[in-house]
């Protein structure tokens, strides 16, 4: 070992130590969050996510330009890390080489891979720099981003590659006996170009580039913890630990123990968030994919899911110092908490809980859970919410519906349709196979009641043995839960679970995706386990079995439909095909045109997350944006599969083009009942 090896060993030791202490510091920060959120279960599913979303960059590729570019850099990094490890060991122990451990073909393959991926990374980095410097890519803008950081990082990576090539090539010039086109063909070609350099100079340049490369690698490693490029380290663990793509059903809110001995309900500051939300802060790449699809942000509202996550990290780094120095006599000045200090109430209430941000995030960050935990604190802890929401809360509590309707009239839509209630059946000692959970919109809203009746008629025509709860049905509680009012939500959920238990209900159908999500995915938290089927799936199934007697002639007026995806049906429950299938079967010659944003990229109608009950004065109305998109397809009618979407779409479409009707898929089928 020479003096230079010794020096390098010393530098590696210091760099590794410094990096380790930074990692330890950051892990310590995570521990400031709530630790009652275990992610050590479901290893196979998590490994699958790691492979598909992490290694194979599934979500990155949703962007056709940045996708391949990032994948080249990422895969290049993976491949080159092997070379870099060898490089570092060899810097300390010059006789070390992987050639001793690998068969020749494998070693040759490995050497070739270093050269090829090095070149690809240079190409991708150059493209990325060019794109950032010459195009104002909209999603990369934003006050919360650290705009110079990516330029520094990209240049850094470029230099890493350049010094790697130069070190290799000058080595070949200085020691021609090492040169071979079969191992590193590109370096070999470069060496040929550089062959005019005298050998002793080449040796010097080799050393210069070798040292530069080594120092750049170690420097890079230690710059990461201070940069948004911490994602290089944090994103793979984050993808592994995330629940946003499973395990478990998407979008299920965490149960909250209201009897817990605590003064703090929900999150006012970073220490009230789960440690996993804090890790999200470290994993965020500031890529802006989330904000670019956020219906609130894109219609001019302040809310930006990226900012929410960037703020979590910023506040965590500040708060950690405060907490760590507390009581030490050297206290850091207290900053303002996450709520109000960084994130305003206005931002939090703008969210429609559409999950588009979560769906899009390439590193499986859960922006929504931060927003919802903060709403819980606002309502449960501080009683702060838009004042127009108060009547909805009070009415849910008083009348079991967010609108001030008489609970006694809940089953009134069924008058004269010969649909029994569970109570009536029980009195006769009978029961029904299926419970139709109608929901508040379907029971009280005049437009939605038409869907309710249409669906009931289809089931009757198909000979389905079903019943309703009538006045015993209560709001499923979703608006309360999404608006942070967990107390009210649990009250309603428990009442419904008790009612359903009374009639031993197993199978439930509903035309409301919010009811479906609650009963099927969130009621298990209260011991309610049911098979919940959305009417789109159920009708598609009945049609497929030929159980619905349809008239033969084709639908008279309308043949071109566009279908608007409901967030709670789509991104929460992955039902995209059934409603389209239902439409096609009901209208054999239907021409279904898709809006640019459809399927799992569908744009929210603007009603979710309790937005239905809030004013929308900031920016453009979300349903206006969606109506324009629907009308731009030239479709003659718009189909929906959710009563909330129905209201939002109908309001905005009828004010633009009276001639384009909005139908629920059940109405389209019922229209053709024989």
């Amino acid at each position, binding site marked *: 070992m020479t003096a230079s090896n010794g020096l390098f060993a010393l530098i590696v030791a210091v760099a590794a130590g410094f990096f380790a202490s930074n990692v330890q510091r950051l892990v310590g920060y995570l521990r400031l969050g709530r630790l009652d959120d275990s992610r050590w279960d479901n290893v196979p599913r998590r490994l699958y996510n790691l492979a598909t979303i992490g290694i194979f960059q599934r979500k990155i590729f949703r962007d056709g330009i940045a996708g391949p570019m990032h994948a080249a850099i990422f895969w290049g990094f993976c491949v080159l890390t092997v070379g870099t490890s060898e490089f570092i060991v060899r810097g300390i122990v010059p006789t070390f080489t992987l050639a001793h451990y690998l068969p020749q073909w494998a070693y040759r393959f490995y050497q070739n891979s270093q050269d090829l991926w090095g070149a690809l990374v240079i190409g991708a980095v150059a493209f990325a720099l060019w794109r950032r410097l010459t195009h104002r890519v909209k999603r990369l803008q934003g006050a919360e981003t650290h705009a110079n950081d990516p330029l520094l990082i990209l240049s850094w990576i470029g230099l890493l590659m350049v010094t790697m090539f130069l070190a290799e090539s000058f080595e070949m010039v200085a020691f021609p006996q090492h040169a071979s086109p079969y191992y590193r063909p590109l370096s070999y070609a470069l060496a040929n170009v550089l062959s005019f350099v005298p050998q002793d100079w080449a040796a010097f340049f080799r050393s210069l580039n070798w040292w530069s490369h080594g120092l750049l690698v170690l420097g890079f490693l230690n710059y990461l913890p201070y940069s948004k490029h911490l994602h290089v380290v944090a994103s793979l663990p984050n993808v592994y630990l995330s629940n946003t793509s499973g395990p478990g059903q998407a979008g299920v809110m965490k149960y909250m123990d209201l009897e817990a001995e605590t003064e703090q309900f929900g999150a006012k500051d970073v220490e009230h968030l789960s440690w996993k939300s804090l890790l999200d802060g470290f994993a965020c790449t500031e890529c802006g994919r989330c904000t670019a699809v956020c219906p609130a942000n894109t219609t001019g509202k302040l809310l930006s899911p990226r900012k929410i996550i960037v703020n979590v990290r910023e506040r965590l780094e500040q708060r950690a110092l405060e907490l760590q120095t507390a009581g030490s006599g050297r206290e850091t000045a207290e900053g303002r908490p996450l709520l109000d200090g960084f994130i305003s109430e206005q931002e939090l209430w703008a969210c429609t809980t559409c999950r588009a941000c979560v769906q899009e995030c390439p590193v499986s960050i859960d922006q929504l859970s931060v927003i919802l935990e903060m709403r819980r604190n606002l309502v*449960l802890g501080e009683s702060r919410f838009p004042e127009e929401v*108060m009547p909805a*809360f009070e009415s849910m509590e008083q009348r079991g519906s967010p609108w001030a309707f*008489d*609970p*006694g009239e809940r089953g009134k839509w069924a008058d004269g349709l010969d649909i029994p209630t569970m109570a009536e059946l029980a009195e006769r000692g009978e029961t029904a196979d299926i419970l139709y959970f109608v929901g508040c919109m379907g029971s009280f809203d005049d437009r939605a009641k038409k869907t309710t009746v249409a669906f009931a008629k289809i089931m009757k025509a198909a000979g389905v043995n079903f019943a309703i709860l009538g006045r015993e049905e209560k709001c499923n509680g979703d608006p309360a839960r999404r608006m942070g009012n*967990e107390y009210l939500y649990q009250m309603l959920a428990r009442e419904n679970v008790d009612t359903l238990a009374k009639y031993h209900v197993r199978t439930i159908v509903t035309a409301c995706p919010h009811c479906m999500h609650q009963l099927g995915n969130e009621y298990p938290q209260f011991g309610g386990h049911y098979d919940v089927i959305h009417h789109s799936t159920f009708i598609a199934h009945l049609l497929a079995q030929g159980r619905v007697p349809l008239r033969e002639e084709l639908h008279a007026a309308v043949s071109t439909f566009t279908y608007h995806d409901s967030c709670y049906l789509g991104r929460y429950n992955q039902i995209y095909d059934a409603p389209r299938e239902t439409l096609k079967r009901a209208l054999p010659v239907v021409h279904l045109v898709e809006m640019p944003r459809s399927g799992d990229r569908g744009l929210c109608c603007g009603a979710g997350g309790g937005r239905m009950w809030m004013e929308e004065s900031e920016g453009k109305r979300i349903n206006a944006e969606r109506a324009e998109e629907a009308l731009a397809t030239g479709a003659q009618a718009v189909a929906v599969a959710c009563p909330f979407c129905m209201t939002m779409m109908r309001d905005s479409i009828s004010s633009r083009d009276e001639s384009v009707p909005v139908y629920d898929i059940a109405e389209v089928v019922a229209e053709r009942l024989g």
Partner: protein
Amino acid sequence: MKLAVCIKRVPDMEGRFKIASSGTGIDEAGLKFDMSDFDGYAAEVAIQITEKLGAGEVTVISLGPDVVQETLRKALSMGAHRAVQLKHDAPVSDGLAIATALAAELKDGGYDLILCGRMAVDTQNRSTGAFVAELLGLPVITAISQLNVDGGVVKARRELEGAYELIECPLPAVVTIDEGIARARYPSLKGIMAAKKKPLEVKPAQVGAVTYQLEKMELPADRAAGRIIGEGKDAVPELVRLLKEEAKVL
């Protein structure tokens, strides 16, 4: 400063009312009950006063059967400090009899300010607050829309048709609260948890002699369905004739 708020538990006004078989009251089956709106504002005003002073105590009082405890708990979860139920199981429709019981409880409480609602939103007698003041020999300002308590003096504002009055009187006093003064806050979960630990005393109500009895309660007759006479100007003569002869409004 000690404040008392009289709170009545009333049925949800959005419900469908039916007359009970007795014919002198409503059928409570299926009805939801909550604090009368004006009493909610009164509780809010009282709580805000103690919050601003950083001192003082708000006592909420309700007369009625045990279910009123739920209403009292709600006031406690808004931030009132203690509650008293004046237990009385049979309904009383006489405001003076109620006021007598309330006054008996309030008399020795040492309250500086007693707040009632302008009226109970269900029966709307508008009498109890003023009766209480009279029975206690205290000044009363009714139906106020603004309130300021400063150095032993209440200053209040009352809305009139197109005008308003500003009234002052010394403490102790009774005020009855109109709308517009404050919105009752939505209890936070913290408040609900805290309310479970706050004192709620149950005492027998010393209801006064009943001075009148409710004889009979009836729902208004269903409105007759509308009639369409015709369309356009041809229908005008017939409309005028009907307005003159049948409706007798012209």
